[in-house]
């Protein structure tokens, strides 16, 4: 499909968001992934979420590592700067970019190989530092670009397309993110756009480290019987705790639901999330509770999806470092350089 140039014309009646942008303004180049890839659905959800949020497209920095998932930033937000960096190192590049300019929105896109295998350390440390970002893992349990090797999120006992059984234990990135202090933790499924779009929107509105694990079946190498990351398997084992109705910067649309099942979460930036709870007892403000809930359901073979934890009052790395409000990349010699008088004094102290 890649030889086809993406047409630029669009329907004149295309809906516009608050800033006057259409959907098309949030799109990128045409995808080079396999037709039907779960990752393309996530791309569509990111586009939808950014459109809904009326984000200025160029105010987003898209950063990724290496792999199928890491190619996707080329396929959305074409007017944003993107950085397809080094395998497993998206988190450090994103951290540095965020330190340089705190005013942009940082979207980190990674895969299970990129974040749970080669980049497990960087994933962990960016989360524990509380970098203000939306970290999305497009999780298919397999190395797609190198043709189907297991990744570290592949479940023990699951079968590869070639019939090999995985004997290693799986890493659950959601459980780890909770343990490391992520202040927004969610899981979703690429095939469930109605759940995923509001989750991405809410994560972008969250100030702090937001992590979303999106199960995204690899139709080429991990969509067969015996896989625990196939469309059929995930649909059968998906257990949603809640569904979001976002809506950042607007009043939550809570009228459709019966009282008692809707919980409104107001985030630090003033945005509101309406949580339509499916499991009435589930409390998304209880980190420990979320960890136990997750473990209990994992033991039953259930894949829990939804917003699992949020700390609406979280802060971020800039708050920890007490950095100035002005982006560091815009400071010049007049504010950064102490000058010759200070240097003379410094010299005098060294004699």
């Amino acid at each position: 499909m890649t030889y086809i140039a993406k047409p630029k014309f669009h329907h004149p009646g295309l809906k516009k968001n608050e800033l006057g942008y259409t959907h098309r303004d949030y799109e990128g180049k045409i995808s080079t992934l396999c037709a039907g890839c779960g990752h393309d659905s996530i791309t569509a959800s990111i586009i939808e979420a950014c459109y809904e949020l009326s984000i200025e497209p160029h105010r987003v920095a898209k950063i990724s590592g290496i792999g199928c998932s890491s190619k996707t930033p080329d396929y959305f937000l074409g007017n944003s700067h993107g950085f397809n960096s080094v395998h497993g190192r998206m988190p450090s590049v994103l951290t540095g970019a965020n330190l340089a300019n705190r005013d942009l929105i940082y979207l980190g896109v990674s895969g299970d190989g990129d974040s749970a295998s080669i980049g497990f350390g960087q994933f962990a440390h960016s989360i524990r530092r509380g970098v203000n970002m939306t970290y999305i893992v497009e999780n298919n349990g397999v190395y797609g670009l190198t043709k189907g090797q297991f990744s570290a999120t592949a479940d023990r006992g699951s079968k590869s397309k070639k019939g090999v059984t995985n004997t290693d234990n799986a890493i659950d990135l959601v459980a780890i993110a909770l343990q490391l202090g992520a202040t927004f933790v969610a899981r979703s499924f690429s095939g469930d756009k109605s759940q995923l779009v509001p989750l991405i929107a809410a994560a972008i509105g969250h100030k702090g480290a937001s992590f979303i694990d999106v199960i995204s079946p690899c139709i080429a190498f991990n969509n067969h019987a015996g896989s625990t990351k196939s469309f059929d398997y995930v649909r059968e084992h998906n257990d949603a705790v809640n569904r979001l109705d976002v809506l950042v910067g607007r009043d939550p649309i809570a009228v459709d639901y019966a009282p008692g099942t809707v919980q409104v979460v107001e985030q630090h930036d003033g945005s509101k999330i309406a949580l339509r709870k499916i499991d009435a007892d589930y409390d998304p403000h209880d980190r420990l509770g979320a960890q136990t809930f997750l473990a209990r359901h994992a033991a039953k073979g259930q894949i829990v999806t939804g917003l699992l934890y949020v700390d609406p009052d979280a802060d971020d790395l800039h708050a920890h470092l007490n950095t100035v409000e002005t982006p560091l990349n815009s400071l010049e010699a007049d504010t950064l350089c102490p000058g010759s008088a200070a240097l003379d004094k410094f010299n005098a102290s060294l004699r």
Partner: protein
Amino acid sequence: MSDKKPISSVNDFVVRFANVNGSGSASANEMFARSILRHGVPVSPRNIFPSNIQGLPTWYEVRVTEAGHLGARGGVDMMVAMNPQTWDKDVAGIEPGGYLFYDSTKPMPSTKFRDDITVIGVPLTAITNSTYTDPRQRQLFKNIIYLGALSALLDMDPKLIEQLIGEQYKGKEKLLSSNVHALHLGRDWALQNLKCPIGLRIKKSDKVGDRIFIEGNSAAALGAVYGGATVCAWYPITPSSSVAEAFTAHCKKYRHDPETGKAKYAIVQGEDELASIGIVIGASWNGARAFTATSGPGISLMTEFIGLSYFAEIPAVIMNIQRAGPSTGMPTRTQQCDIIACAYASHGDTKHVLLFPEDPAEAFEFAAAAFDLAERLQTTIFLMLDLDIGMNHRLCRPLKWDDSKQYDRGKVMTAEMLEEGRDFGRYLDVDGDGIPYRTYPGTHPTKGSYFTRGTSRDRYARYSEEGSVYADNMQRLVRKFETAQDLVPRPLQANAERPTKYGVIYFGSTSPAMDEAIGLLEARGHQLDRLRIRAFPFHSSVASFLAEHDFVYVVEQNRDSQLRQLIVNENGIDPVRLVPIVHYDGTPITARYIAKAIGDHQDHLKVTPLRKAVS
């Protein structure tokens, strides 16, 4: 008592302190060095320390040098032997006619001494224990007591030491007076019980001038502050950790908003060197000036990212405080051993800019300049220090800054330029210097965005695996590296008095030893022109220098003569004409070593006429 006349020397000798790591001797020893400076006499101190926190032997060597030779000299004229573990070796290392200063509280068998040295015993432990009861005080003041005794033996002015103590403990009266008291305990004991002064003496002079006394790492860190670095990411590794620590201290002093107290910088201790360089690259990509400081093993880990910086053209500054490799090597010993590793770091065809400061003053200047170079050239700039410069106090000219200087932010296309309709191709060589324009993320709603990647792409940053497109880009990178030649600090040449066909090339911390060696060689009748290389890529004057001389010695502190390899490789010259002079045992190179190696080679080269030889 001795069958060798005691060494007699004013303002020109080496004192070495042998201590146990963690015994608090470092500050007393440093005070000894500083107090000699206050006499107007230059000193060059060196820490010789183990990779250990407490218990292993450590030495502090002070070369007193009125002539201003700041390289290591070799040999010890006076040993202050405070460590029983290393006693035998320490005593053996004293020059014939030298002096041994030791704690005589416990009697030592005569076999533990030598006949050809002067032995000076001071009952340090006895004096200390009779004055102090607290064990920690006993340990710390013992150091000050020996400092006091030395001041009497070497004829130093105690007022100058008191002044230093006063500055160090300003506002802490109790500590101040107790230190001065301890100083005089030692001094008085020596004056009353020993023949003072000995043959080694400090005499007031005026050879220090306005020079400052600073460690290279601190100076480099200050250079980063002056050069506008706002992001520092690092991972602890000796001997580079003190760069980040000094940067933190300097920023606390100079970089907080006076009204809000907020920081105009961000420092992150990464989880490893991969994260550190990743943070630097992310920050630089986003338009901030960023750097990391590391050493050999860190460089090895960073190489994948360094290749990305080269190929995707993202500025980065890496300060490499070199130590002896390979692998963990000798982590607390000095070498210049990462020249090749840095010049060609990463897989594929890569070349990187290296800067070679000779001392803290240049470390400051080059560190600040590195940020301009990184943004101008959009690539990694290595500041190549080593442990000898980085972790030792060195006397150097005062640091200078021109207040009219603006940062060179390089070719950055702004929203206005894009709005004017300027053609933006991220990898388009519009000026013929190989350097394209870049945009910062978030610049313009519809223009100037691009996708940064380590994969091959065309001039407009569009993914491409076309061979011609790839080669076009690789050729442009060569052009850019040629441009760098004229931007980096040029080599400095100093010619011999008489025309000569012999030359010597050196760089970095070898500088003071080389300058001193020239004098020694001249005394042996050898004339050599000198070229101090200060950066890679090599300026055309390096090739000229090679062409003008039949033989050129390349003096460096590594086994494989790495700079020589680089010169041969980059200039395509006959390797036979470049004679390697290498020193790589982890100690700093000395003038004596260089003069002997070059002198012997010169003697060997010179065919002495038969008639002259027999006459």
